[in-house]
């Protein structure tokens, strides 16, 4: 089997789906964050793979760089939010934060 774009995309899809499921199942706020990281990472794999196999070239890599940087920033903010959440609820269980329910 020739290793081509499709294979990389499948790896990216696995990462993405794992991230989504992680977000959907974890009650721990940190776990949810990890899911987010996985989703972003799956997207990154796609970008870089497209950069390699299509005329996208360096642009794909640069976009993935932006994604990494923004993910880091997001992680920092999300962690701060998680800490605040923890301060307010004395737990990190996201199921407890349902004040905004309709």
């Amino acid at each position, binding site marked *: 089997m020739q290793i081509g774009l499709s294979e990389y995309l499948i790896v990216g899809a696995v990462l993405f789906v794992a991230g989504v499921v992680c977000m959907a199942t974890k009650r721990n706020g940190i776990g949810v964050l990890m899911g987010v990281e996985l989703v972003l990472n799956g997207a990154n794999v796609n970008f870089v793979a497209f950069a390699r196999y299509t005329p996208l070239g360096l642009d794909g890599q640069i976009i993935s760089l932006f994604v990494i940087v923004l993910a880091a920033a997001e992680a920092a903010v999300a962690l701060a939010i998680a800490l605040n959440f923890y301060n307010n609820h004395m737990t990190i269980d*996201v199921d407890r934060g*349902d004040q*905004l329910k*309709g």
Partner: protein
Amino acid sequence: MLDWIWILLTAAWLLPLLGFAVEVFGGYWQQSRRDRTPALIAVACIGAGFVLSVAAFIIWGSETHWGVFAAEPEHGDVPAQQAVEDTTREAAAEDASELQPADAGQQHSYRKAISGTIYTLARFGDLKLSIDYYVDSLTLVMFMMVTLIATCIHIFALGYMSDELTDEYVDHQAHTAGGDHVHRPGRYYLFFSYMSLFCFSMLGLVLAGNIFQVFIFWELVGICSYLLIGFYVERHSASTAANKAFIMNRVGDFGFLIGLMVIWTYFGTFSLGPETIGDETRPGIFAMVRNAEGGLDIRNESGSPVVHLNGSVAEADDAGAADGEAAVTAERTIPYWLLVVAGLGVFAGCIGKSAQFPLQTWLPDAMEGPTPVSALVHSATMVAAGVYLAGRFYPVFTPDVLLVMSYVGCITLFLAATIAVVATDIKRVLAYSTISQLGYMMLGIGVAGWAAGLFHLITHAFFKSLMFLCSGSVIIGCHHEQEMPRMGGLRRKMPITAYTMLVGVIAISGLAIPFTILGMKLAFSGYHSKDAIVATALAFNYKNPVHFLLFLVPLVTAGITAFYMFRLWFYTFCGEPRDRHIYDHAHESPRVMTLPLIVLAVFAAGVAVGGEGGPLYRMLLASEPAGVDVGSEAIDPTVAFIPEDVGYALVGQPARAEIHSVHAQAGAFALIAAAAGAVLAFLLYVVRVVDPGEIKRQVGGLYRFLIEKWHFDTLYDVAFVRPVHRVAAALAWFDRVVIDGILHWFANTSVRIASWDRKVDEGLVDGLVNLVGNVTFRVGRSLRAVQTGQLRQYIMFIALGVLSLFVLQFIFFPR
């Protein structure tokens, strides 16, 4: 130097306007209504006007080397022999040139009118609207007369109106709806501002150099009259009288407007004197309608008489449209009958303003105004403006118009005099006497006694204003009592008033001592002027025997005049007091009021000194239109052969020589009549040979007829007022029922449509909107449950959503 004349007169004319502005605004905003300053300003303005007028007169005199007084009147002392010869002449116009030497222009420089433009308001093609001046000796005399009398009356009014000098004036003759007396701030300043405005208007009327300007000031004096009659506007009688005066004047002014339109259409100018438009100088109305000898250029063209206007240039298209001859001569023409219409129209304005028959009824009611107003506006000046205009426009009047004028004057003077006999209100007697005297003037002008009519205008102005002021003094002295039957014996209480009044009474009656002292008749002014009129009427009568009434009626009325005037004087000042209360409280007026009386009495006595050789008459004569002095002959179309170019004349007019020849005779007649009237009054009211009440009962029907003023008010009421009311009521009914009905129908329909619209709005539109709102609300509510607040569920939903989108895409867009 001649320019100074009109400059001075213009200054004299505009000063009262300035005074008016200052008084009306300054007075309105001044702190107290007790301030005499506005009145003093008014007096100063009009007094300065008098000084300026006199200055203008002196300049005029010196510029003309006092020729007006130096030269002998052309016919004043013509031997009777020559006068008789004169009457034998057939064509007056031809001989006129003989009588007036070739160097007439040099010799009679004082006869020349000074005219020009002060300010051009606007020009529309040929029509030039401007403020012009037209100054001749008549203007100067009028200026001096008006300003002098106005000054005296202003000064008199300082005292007369002083009860208005208060912040709260109680009008005992006006009542509010609640029955109380009207309380209002004093209107001292307002009175004097109106007076100033009146003086401005009157002087403007006299100075006016074109007939449109005359009309403007004509209306302005009408407005002032209206304001002053209605000065006590809270009194119903005063406001009604003001309205009456104004409306009746409008009737006359309508005729005036028609005359103006005819003049403008056929003459192409309004200007009295020569008019300069651009570089072109055009002759004025007078020069157009009369030739140098004062004749009308009447020609028979295509069967109807046409008057050619001298020196005028017809417009090109007019010439093409008119018949051939007009195109060749290039002169404007006017059909003779339209000239008559123009003359009658202008005269209609004079009728309204001078309260002539049939528009005479407003003047007695105008006595509702304060007495100085009656003296100034309604006897001396404004009402005389009608006569003045008739004199001014004399050249435009054809003999037919003059005949109408003389009959109107004749009817008026008799009618008013008879009413005056029975009137008991002191001011109303004077008012009727004014109407009567104005009738004399109209008659005088109408029978070709041009100078005589205006002579009477001047003298009458003096003695009538004097008598009105005396009556004002009496009214003040008797605390606003005007009924003569409640007076009597006041001579002892107010001697100055009484004897100045006597001067006026003698003057108006025309009494004189039938001798001459030092070549002068010992007579007051009224004798001379009335004498002149009666003499002219007599001469006219000799020439046109069919019009004998024009002499007889004035002669009889001269007697009646003397009768009612002496009746007034005896009633008021002689005999026993009839009302003790009034008599006890009567007092002589303060000096500020008696001083004008004395001044006016002097003038009333002496203004006509010298009679027809005197300076006043000479001054007037200097302005006499050409041709008046030579008279004319009647040309009866039914009798005589009429040459094609001459036209016809219903009446002949007496030449001055003819008048002079009958002067002594007429004077004797008039003096006898006046003396008879005076003696009769003496017998009835002083000696009481017969009780006047007895006579009253004897001729009760006549008495009531006269008391009711010949039923003119009733007649007008039936003929005009009631029909107008009825038509107005019908129109009001139409308005209320038909038009209001239609409008109400529209309104109701609109309301109904609006109510339907409201139902649609509330049911359908609001329903739809509410439905949308409710559905949205309900959907939102049902979807509320989805918002669990569970983060992980949201993620599941997102994943599910993405999945569903893909599934949908695969279903609907399969590859």
